[in-house]
């Protein structure tokens, strides 16, 4: 398994290089540049040219590209073109907040979504199923930012149960959890809807399979049939889905980060794109790409745990 993992990581390197090269080109092709963005209203041609020089943007593109790659190899993600601060410091601050939000949202999605999916599959075409499906449809239809604002209005403003600001200090776990609750619930409910519907769909297929019928014929209890046989088989597509959600949450949590005024990688990325902060955009993409490789690898390894037929060579 270790050899398999290493092979996967090495294979990811050319993909990573291709993605980074593409990002390097795309951010420079889009109209606007960091000097104009930084100067805004005062962006006279003279001022823009002077600032571009100070930012190193007057160098030939291939020089900028080589500088970027050689910096990466040294572990140097460069400095923000706008704030001049090391990008690694900004990422170091934002990343834990994003990870904790994503993990919390996925946990909520799993804890609520899987039981809902199993119950609605087992009680198919009953009132329980109809209610469950309507609620998941509502969850899928609700934009995350709107749900966030609704939660803020009721739980923060009306009932004063949670703070409006969604990020606490990691040195105070309880307070941090208090700040995390609403944003995590906001994203988690939407994850619940997706996971619930997926689980229901997969369970319905599995419950119709021969081995499940055999298990029932053998006289096993409903609980054992569901959890030890049917659900185990349903886990593989669910694991795939969770892997995809985890990847998308790292970036798509930006709206939740904005509504709850939380620092995070998504918000950092959007801000960097708006300001045409090439260095920060490129460096965040490195982090994203590494995350995607890591999460895909974890997903594959979990397959091996869930499905004994899977072997790693």
């Amino acid at each position, binding site marked *: 398994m270790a050899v398999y993992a290493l092979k996967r990581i090495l294979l990811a390197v050319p993909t990573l290089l291709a993605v980074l090269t593409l990002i390097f080109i795309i951010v420079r092709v*889009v*109209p*606007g*540049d960091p000097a*104009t*963005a930084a*100067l*805004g*209203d*005062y*962006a*006279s*041609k*003279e*001022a823009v040219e*002077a*600032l571009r020089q*100070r930012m190193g943007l007057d160098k030939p593109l291939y020089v900028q590209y080589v500088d970027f790659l050689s910096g990466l190899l040294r572990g140097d993600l460069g*400095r923000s073109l706008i*704030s*001049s*601060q090391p990008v690694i*410091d*900004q990422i170091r*601050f*934002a990343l834990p907040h994003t990870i904790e939000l994503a993990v919390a949202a996925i946990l909520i999605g799993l804890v609520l979504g899987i039981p809902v999916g199993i119950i609605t599959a087992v009680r198919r075409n009953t009132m329980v199923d109809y209610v469950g499906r309507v609620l998941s449809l509502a969850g899928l239809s609700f934009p995350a*930012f709107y749900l966030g*604002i609704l939660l*803020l*209005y009721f739980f*923060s*403003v009306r009932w*004063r149960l949670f*703070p*409006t*600001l969604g*990020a606490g200090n990691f040195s105070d776990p309880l307070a941090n959890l208090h700040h995390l609750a609403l944003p995590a619930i906001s994203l988690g409910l939407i994850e619940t809807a997706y996971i619930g519907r997926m689980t229901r769909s997969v369970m319905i297929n599995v419950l119709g399979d021969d081995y499940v019928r055999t298990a029932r014929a053998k006289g096993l209890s409903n609980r054992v049939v569901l959890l030890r046989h049917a659900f185990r088989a349903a886990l593989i597509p669910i694991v795939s889905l969770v892997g995809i959600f985890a990847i998308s949450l790292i970036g798509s949590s930006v709206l939740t980060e*904005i*509504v*709850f*005024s939380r*620092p*995070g990688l998504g*918000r*950092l990325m959007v*801000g960097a794109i*708006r*300001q*045409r902060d090439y260095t920060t955009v490129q460096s965040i993409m490195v982090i994203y790409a590494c995350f995607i490789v890591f999460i895909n690898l974890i997903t594959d390894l979990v397959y091996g745990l869930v499905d004994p037929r899977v072997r790693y060579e």
Partner: protein
Amino acid sequence: MDGKQVWTFTLRQGVMWHPGPQTESYELTADDVVFSLQKSANSDTSAYAAEYTGMTFEKVDDYTVRITLDTPLSPLLFLPKVANYSGGFIMSQRAVEAMGPDAIKTHPVGTGPFMFQNYTPQNAIELVAWDNYFRGAPKLAGVTLRFMPDPSSRELALQSGEMDVVDGISEARWVDKINAIDGLTADVFGVGEVTFVNFDMSREPLSDVRVRQALAYAMNREEHLALFGEPVAQSVYSVAPAELMAGGLTREEAEQAGVAYDYDPDRAQQLLAEAGVQNLTFEVVTSELDSYRKHYEALQAQLAKIGVTLTVNVVDHPTFHSLIRENVNPIVIYIAFRPNPDAYFSQFFHSDAIVVTGPKPNTNFSHYDKVDDLIEEARAETDPDRQVELWKEINTRILQDMAAMPLLYINQVYGRSKRVDYGHELKSSLALYPQITELTTITG
């Protein structure tokens, strides 16, 4: 002196710099002032260097600074250059030299009532009271500025009591809404940012003044004003407006000069017919920001009534700024605050500043070049009354040639808990946000 103008500033004594990460607290002297202004005058270190062309700065003694101008300027033009605006901020020489120009960006060192303590990216800036402030120790122990990009979230935080003061939405509806909530109030204050519509007269058919005037008559100031509402916004009748500065035209003066351009779609169509144009179409980009997009959408509807089609493409704000400076838009709606008419005229209506092709391209989107001499004459005029007359003349000429149509100015809007007393009357702030001073208090 020798044809040059000399300004001599006597510095207040006992003004102490905050301690920095690598510097102790020390007294502000002429060294810091000269260092800062020389930095501002250097194009390698300042985007505002052009403002200080022809100026030299020297220390006479520890508390006296002499600024010599090759070309005399009136007080109205000179003083903003040394105020807390653009290049006029005075910095601690020792702190800048110790930390470097990059580090000072995220750990500023100043002389105000509150000093920098901590900055967490995307989260907050924490300031603590500076007890050695020259006007006395602040009543507040500190101020925390939080970064909250969503206006709804800011409003909810104000309502929940977690925030005491928040940046609001520049709409009268929002002001009314906040004022109706028990314990909250909305502050509407200057400086006002002027919205005006520039017509690129270098391209057909906008090169015909009748076409430009037709488009101006098709614009309904009331509709644009309604997008924001009074008192948040007010209509204006010149690009450098009388409501904000000397040298502007009041409504009465504009009417008297025949350049008020009150809404008249019939006259608009008549002018288009005289110019022999029909089925006009324009394509423009607008910023996604409400303050720009709403104006373009209103303009689109207004021009449609006279048979002119305006296609509007929405792009993000940096792209908008970039594209309009590449002369992409035939019609450019721009929003700007400038401290005096000369800044408006020099940057928007002097031929030097014509986008792309001007000798020093800036924001002359209209490609107007008919008032260069007047602008330079007004700039060099040291008699304030005569200077104001010249500015009024320039404003009138711009309107007669319809290089740009002034619409309105927008004030700043902030929401506040009534527990907060700023300690001063909030009329106007160059910084665009309410000033928290040593007298600011919070009750309860």
